[in-house]
């Protein structure tokens, strides 16, 4: 079956009343879940998994896919409005998104993000549809050497991602790396820094850490500002639509974000989060308005948010074309298939064409559904800002606690939430940046894992990391970026 016939067939499958309802419901529920701090795509899809056993497999998968990209989009809402990312993929969105909200542009940014998510998702689906079998081979090319280059190189490049002085970025990043070593290490499952507390052996839960560092810390800061002075001006509803300039400035980030997200989605690991880090860094490097990024530029929001939705979509490639899930959400989708006796693997496209093309078609439908649902809802989200704080903030705290507990049914995650909330508050008071800390937490375990895997493979020979041409190319790019950012101020000074 060629792509066109396949897609027509897929629309035949996906456009049944039941499946259409599943896509819409999934997108809606996903957005809701994403908006709640502490509840992200993984929690949402995990909640729906037992239900999906009762549906027929295509319907279940369509609903899960809807929840996945709905939550990916929804996670940005609280990041923009309240400086509270729902999960690590929206951390970058906070920086400029919240600044824009303070300038009264919340509605406009949410609209831009909805369109960006649609663009990233849709272009990504086309890529998945046309090239899935070939793209799957791309993921296989990446081994420990290549991943070490991506994760360790990424850490080097991203250390100063959110501006500020060198120390303001490097200290929180080191703190994040240190925290990431708590718990059972990945290779031999030995406990580190757990002090005999068994529950700590699963490590610092990322969701709880992110919601604590940003959400709880933000609430503490808000409470303090309420005591110190009047609250910020509420957003006016008629300023909902982006201006012509904002649209024009978003076009290029949409394109770059799609590309970055699409490539990261093909790789294992927390690809949505990594793609948003990379996209933000890219915008800072190449955008014409790079000097405004960090102080409320639309590029800093639309790039990463387009990227994480593109990554969510292209992460279907390894699942559909290899039967190998590279992330938690796609692992859940794989489980849903296997319960129904569908054999995932390279032959899925032939043996279960209805599943393959049905999911692809539903990704199109889901993206349209997401746009159609969310543009009208922006008014609703923005009006959340008008709820009196003494009512609103306690609700957020309760939801954050429930969300953190729900991830692993563990009270330790709730303690992490509270503790890192205080840490985040103190760091902000001292003018440290928080994003590098999250980056350290995300990349630390990956760097260690890939380094040790590589050394196991080569029996201790470090050359394994530079033997592969792909790894070398990545390291060369890292060196270029580092040299570029070191030289740029010098060049600019000469010009100026």
């Amino acid at each position: 079956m060629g792509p066109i016939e396949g897609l027509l067939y897929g629309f035949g499958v996906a456009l049944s009343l039941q499946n259409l309802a599943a896509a819409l419901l999934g997108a809606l529920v996903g957005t809701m879940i994403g908006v709640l701090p502490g509840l992200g795509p993984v929690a949402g899809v995990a909640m729906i998994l037992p239900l999906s056993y009762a549906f027929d497999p295509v319907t279940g998968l369509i609903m899960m896919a809807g929840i996945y990209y709905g939550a990916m989009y929804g996670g940005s809402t609280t990041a923009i409005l309240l400086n509270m990312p729902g999960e690590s993929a929206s951390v970058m969105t906070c920086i400029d998104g919240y600044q824009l909200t303070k300038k009264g542009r919340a509605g406009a940014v949410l609209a831009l993000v909805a369109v960006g998510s649609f663009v990233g998702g849709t272009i990504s689906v086309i890529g998945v549809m046309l090239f899935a079998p070939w793209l799957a081979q791309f993921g296989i090319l990446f081994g420990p050497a290549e991943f070490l280059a991506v994760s360790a190189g990424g850490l080097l490049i991203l250390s100063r991602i959110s501006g500020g002085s060198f120390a303001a970025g490097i200290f929180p990043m080191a703190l994040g790396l240190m925290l990431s070593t708590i718990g059972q290490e990945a290779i031999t499952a030995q406990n580190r820094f757990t002090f005999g507390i068994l529950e700590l052996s699963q490590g610092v839960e990322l969701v709880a850490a992110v919601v604590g560092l940003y959400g709880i810390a933000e609430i503490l800061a808000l409470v303090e500002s309420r005591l110190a002075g009047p609250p910020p001006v509420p957003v006016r509803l008629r300023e909902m639509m982006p201006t012509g300039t904002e649209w024009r400035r978003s076009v290029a980030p949409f394109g770059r974000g799609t590309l970055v997200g699409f490539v990261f989605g093909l790789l294992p690991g927390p690809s949505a989060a990594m793609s948003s880090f990379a996209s933000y860094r890219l915008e800072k490097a190449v955008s014409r308005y790079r000097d405004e990024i960090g102080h409320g530029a639309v590029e800093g929001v639309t790039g990463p948010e387009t990227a994480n939705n593109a990554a969510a979509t292209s992460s279907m490639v390894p699942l559909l074309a290899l039967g190998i899930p590279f992330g938690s959400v796609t692992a859940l989708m794989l489980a849903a298939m296997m319960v129904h006796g569908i054999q995932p693997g390279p032959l899925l496209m032939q043996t279960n064409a209805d599943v393959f093309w049905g999911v692809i078609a539903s990704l199109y439908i889901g993206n349209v559904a997401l746009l159609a649902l969310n543009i009208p809802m922006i008014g609703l989200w923005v009006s959340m800002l008008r709820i009196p704080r003494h009512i609103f903030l306690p609700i957020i705290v309760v939801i954050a606690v429930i969300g953190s507990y729900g991830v692993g049914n563990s009270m330790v995650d709730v303690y992490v939430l509270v503790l890192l909330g205080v840490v985040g508050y103190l760091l902000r008071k001292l003018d440290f940046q928080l994003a590098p800390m999250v980056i350290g937490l995300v990349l630390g375990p990956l760097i260690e894992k890939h380094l040790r895997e590589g050394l196991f493979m080569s029996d201790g020979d470090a050359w394994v990391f530079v033997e592969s041409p792909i790894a070398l190319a990545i390291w060369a790019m890292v060196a270029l970026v580092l040299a570029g950012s070191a030289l740029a101020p010098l060049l600019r000074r000469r010009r100026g």
Partner: protein
Amino acid sequence: MTPLLRVLAAAFVALSGTALAQDYPARDLTFIVPYGPGGSTDPISRQFASQMEKELGRSIAIQNKPGAAGTLGTSAIVTSRPDGYTIGLAPNTTLLFAPMTNKDLVFQSTSDYEPIAKLVSLPYVLVVKADAPWKTLQEFIDDAKKQPGKLRASVSGIRATNDLTMQQLNRAAGIRVRTIPFTGGGGEAMVALLGGRVEAYVGTGASTAGHAEAGSVRVLAVFQKGRYDLFPDATPTGDAGYDATLGPIYYAIAPKGVPQAALDKLSAAARKVIDSAEYRKFAADNGYSVENLTPAQIREEFVRDHAMFTDLLKFLEQK
């Protein structure tokens, strides 16, 4: 909760405790799964729990408690209130091997919990790429003998169950195939084989079947005694004279101290479920073996496997 409600709730709990012997189960049960939703243990648990609900006439809520290679969730079962209302799934390696290397665990011996049923077991398979030079298990072993420490097999972690299985083969065949850990789940060990970064892969039939069907990999051996229906051409290690047949076994267990009447009711219901045609079909479809054992027989199996793991650990520590 108002004080009045709290008193009522406490009274209810107390009453349900005293009424246990006659009317167990008097309320709904919780079934703890020590892995996240989406693992292979999730469908096993749900199948078992949904059939148990019919036998016991009560609902059973599945609670996923993932982390630390199954030890967190297993600890949660062992330390739960021993009233018969919290039970759960536990794997053989977690129950028997993990305490040998982790003295922090709350369960250190098999008397720290009560077995209810043996849910399923499944064998691992030894897989190479389709274009690899080895066509049989024997060719692979012969080649491994010629170049000790050169061949590599991807597994899901050092001292993970599939690593231990490969080490059993190393010991039985007198070879030294290096195991390379690819943690993080998600089939990264299989990707390492497909990408040609290792020579072999040790994993489950379910993770292999799709690639074998597509002709990209070849299954050389199955780590068990007797033919494996999923791969009838694979050489069973047990029949080829190699004592390397370790595979995951999943048990249902309860904490120590559950009243005997409740335990009896649970294991009787479980044995009915496991003997049912519906459960057998579920197991066969997924490549699982089913053996309907009494709690006493499971204890015998624990003793046997405990000795096997002790031996294996000695071998690993000598290396």
